[in-house]
């Protein structure tokens, strides 16, 4: 059971302060309906959009003569389309037949059906919701004498083109990564999964940001209870803005106080598609290329999407290598400390002598030595992410010198330790999921302190405690270490090895219990019989 701070579950916001912060002065106008009088409605909107320099009000005169107005947000709309498909159509038609003999009530319908060239239109009466749509990039058409507004989908804004995801590169596999535009992202998934059962449910969160969220899941595979739980947890989120999926991740996870990520984030649409097919739920958040996937196990986080594209034997070996290096990244420096400080007898004599010789000039105990170097390495890593491109070269040269040769020659650290640190450094980047890699890299430090005070005994107990912690974690109800614990022997085929595709008959039971059958049996290719 996760630790909880007192009261963390039932924390209640102070309502009076909250409302004041979130609502603009025009709150009472939001609930009102349109009056039908264009001049007064425009005045309402103008006061509502007071001091919004990017808001455009365009008044026109139609046949009748009837006054009309367009309201849109410059920069969120395709102005070219407003010109040609709405304005031009309306103004030319004002001399035509469609509107001439139409009664007032039917005019908006006629415009919608016969005049405006747009794929997406809706009608609305409430000022508040019309304003929201305008802020979302739609164009509103108000007509004098009509108590309804036509909302035309003209959204368009500048966005980055589809690039290769920089955080999860592959050698073999698709190169497209998510972008900041949620519509592009859903289309990237939709292009992979074209079935009607692949649902994309839209939600919205954030009082000010009004961020769009799309849940992706396959109906018939994903457990409906899981989908409901995800929705309920997202609905619970009531925050001013969700600027990145990281906000949401921290707000909906099971155990908020653990270092391990219980939700996967990925930039790869193929990864989301693959996981959604296993009965998981993808959460796409607007304005970020990082999608979330729930629930995940630790082994999902240790798998790269490429494992499924390469042939199964190399993929299996890669997985072993990854498990081994992941473990080394955690314990290697602490083993060095424990052995050099407490258990020298465990090493073969010749190795012990060479380590002792290299440590001879070093003034620090092993733990201080290791801490110095590990901290320097972590610092270099963080600086490498943050630094402006032009200085990159300088930092890498200085880093290589400081962490390498110079430190040894100056007698600050031993050469053996440099090897240990650099091996650990390499190993700590083997994690396909960056978030899990961060957790392991951080856990290395407490482990080093324990190794420095209690030796191997301390390391063993710390690892036991870590195992207990992991075995107790859950991600949306799914045990974090499944299928290893609780054991489901048949599913180890996708954990300890990567079974060939023709043998992966079943989806993981933990998430796809409803519909576990993935393929037809007997797909294993056979040697064709020779003829004649």
């Amino acid at each position, binding site marked *: 059971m996760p630790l909880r701070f007192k009261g963390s579950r039932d924390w209640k916001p102070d309502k009076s302060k909250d409302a004041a912060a979130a609502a603009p002065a025009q709150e009472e106008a939001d609930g009102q309906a349109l009056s039908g009088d264009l001049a007064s409605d425009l005045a309402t909107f103008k006061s509502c959009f007071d001091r919004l320099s990017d808001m455009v009000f365009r008044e026109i005169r139609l046949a009748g003569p009837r006054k009309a107005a367009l309201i849109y947000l410059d920069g969120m709309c395709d102005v070219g389309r407003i010109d040609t498909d709405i304005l031009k159509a309306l103004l030319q038609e004002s001399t035509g037949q469609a509107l001439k003999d139409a009664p007032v009530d039917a005019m908006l319908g006629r415009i919608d059906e016969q005049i405006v060239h747009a794929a997406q239109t809706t009608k609305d009466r409430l000022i508040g919701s019309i304003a929201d749509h305008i802020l979302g990039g739609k164009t509103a058409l108000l007509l004098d004498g009509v108590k309804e507004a036509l909302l035309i989908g003209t959204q368009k804004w500048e966005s980055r083109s589809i690039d290769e995801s920089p955080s999860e590169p592959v050698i073999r596999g698709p190169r497209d990564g998510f972008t900041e535009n949620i519509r592009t992202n859903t289309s990237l998934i939709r292009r992979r999964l074209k079935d009607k059962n692949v649902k994309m449910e839209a939600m919205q969160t954030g009082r000010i940001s009004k961020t769009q969220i799309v849940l992706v899941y396959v109906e018939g595979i994903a457990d409906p209870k899981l989908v409901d739980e995800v929705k309920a947890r997202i609905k619970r989120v009531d925050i001013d803005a969700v600027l990145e999926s990281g906000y949401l991740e921290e707000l909906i996870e099971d155990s908020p106080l653990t270092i391990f990520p219980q939700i996967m984030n990925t930039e790869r649409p193929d990864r989301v598609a693959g996981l959604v097919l296993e009965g998981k739920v993808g959460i796409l958040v607007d304005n970020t290329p990082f999608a979330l996937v729930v629930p995940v196990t630790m082994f999902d986080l240790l798998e790269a999407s490429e494992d499924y594209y390469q042939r199964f034997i190399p993929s299996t070996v890669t997985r072993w290598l990854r498990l081994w290096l992941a473990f080394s990244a955690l314990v290697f420096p602490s083993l060095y400390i424990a052995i050099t400080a*407490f258990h020298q007898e465990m090493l*073969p004599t010749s190795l012990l002598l060479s380590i002792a010789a290299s440590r001879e000039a070093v003034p620090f105990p092993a733990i201080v030595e290791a801490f110095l170097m590990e901290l320097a390495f972590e610092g270099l890593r963080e600086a490498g992410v943050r630094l402006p491109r032009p200085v990159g070269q300088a930092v890498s040269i200085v880093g290589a010198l400081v962490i390498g040769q110079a430190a040894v020659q100056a007698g600050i650290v031993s050469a053996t330790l440099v090897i240990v640190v650099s091996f650990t450094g390499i190993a700590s980047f083997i994690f396909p999921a960056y978030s899990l890699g961060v957790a392991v890299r951080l856990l290395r430090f407490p482990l080093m302190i324990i190794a420095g005070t*209690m030796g191997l*005994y301390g390391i063993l107990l710390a690892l036991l405690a870590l195992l*207990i912690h992991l*075995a107790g974690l859950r991600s949306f109800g799914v045990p974090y270490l499944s299928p290893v*614990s609780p*054991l489901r022997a048949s599913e180890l085929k996708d954990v300890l090895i990567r079974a060939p595709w023709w043998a992966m008959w079943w989806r993981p039971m933990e998430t796809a219990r409803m519909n576990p059958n993935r393929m037809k049996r007997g797909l294993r290719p056979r040697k064709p019989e020779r003829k004649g």
Partner: protein
Amino acid sequence: MTKISLYQLFCGILFFQQGTTIIFGFSSGAGRDAWICTLLSTAFGACLVYLFTVLMRLQDGLMLTEWFPALFGRYVGVPIAWLYFVLFFYDASRIIADLKFTINMIMLPDTPEWAVLAMFMLVAVYMLFNGIEVLFRIAGILVPIVTALYALQIILLLSSGTMHADFLLPVAGEGWARIWRNVWPLSVMQSFGETLLFAMFWPLVVNRRKAAKVSVSVVFCSGLFLTVLNLLIITTLGEGVYKRSIYPTISMLRLISVGDFIENLDALGLMFFIVTTFFKLSFYMFGCVFAFRQLAFVKNDRRIIVPLAAVSYCVGITMSNDIVEHIQSGFEELQYYVWIPLMIGIPVLLLPFAWKKSKKLKEGT
């Protein structure tokens, strides 16, 4: 609701039965015939565990401390149930005392023992807070790993050429009396008799009929483990060293030497010991917590974890002055005055009552 799978139950009992014996040696008093002794006591142990499972089936769905109030009523049953609480508590503290000597003697000679034990106890308390289900789960993870390391250890021993099969001869050369003296009561009670503790956890298992079968079969499995361990120790060390040594497993592992590179693997042996001991301690502590919760009507058992662990830490650290005294009390007084009456006497007495009651219930329906 906590549910424990049969595989997890198997792993849990296996670790529990290996417990501390993995390092102190099993029926080492029988010298070179210890392996015969182990085989015999496995057979008796299986009978004993079978008896426990029969009782469990007769008292379906109740845990050990609920058996007595259910059969004998409140005034007789509850005091007997408290006896078991005390037994589990004492055994948990005894394990802490085992650790107190072992870790300091073998691994960390300069570290103060209170610190060594405190760290162990902290991890155990963390375990208790995480719940019994997690304990069984990590047993399920660790059993394959430990088994693999155990196999590795056998391969390394074989390849370092320190084993002498003739150390086993003559078989039963000192007569069967010596073997028998070690089988009864010591070896049967040690680990196998202690399995009575699992009567506290059986109600949590998914399938109780199969749980009974699994619990008996795990006795044979761990008997096999111990027999192999005994054979290894005897053939590497010989009777003399085995009988005298307090930590024969460690002495044996120190002899491993493959190509002058893999040497001094006592850390590996100690790793087994720490893991299995951790499980044994945690199971006993869970037994205490469950018993206390039920007998003292505590609603939230998270509140009693820390006090129970603290008291058992203090009891364990002050229990005995040196390892010889500690082992002596375990082999002599404890056997006759505590373990035999509580682990064999009362269960055997209980059998007719339980049988009668379940018959009555059946007739009633």
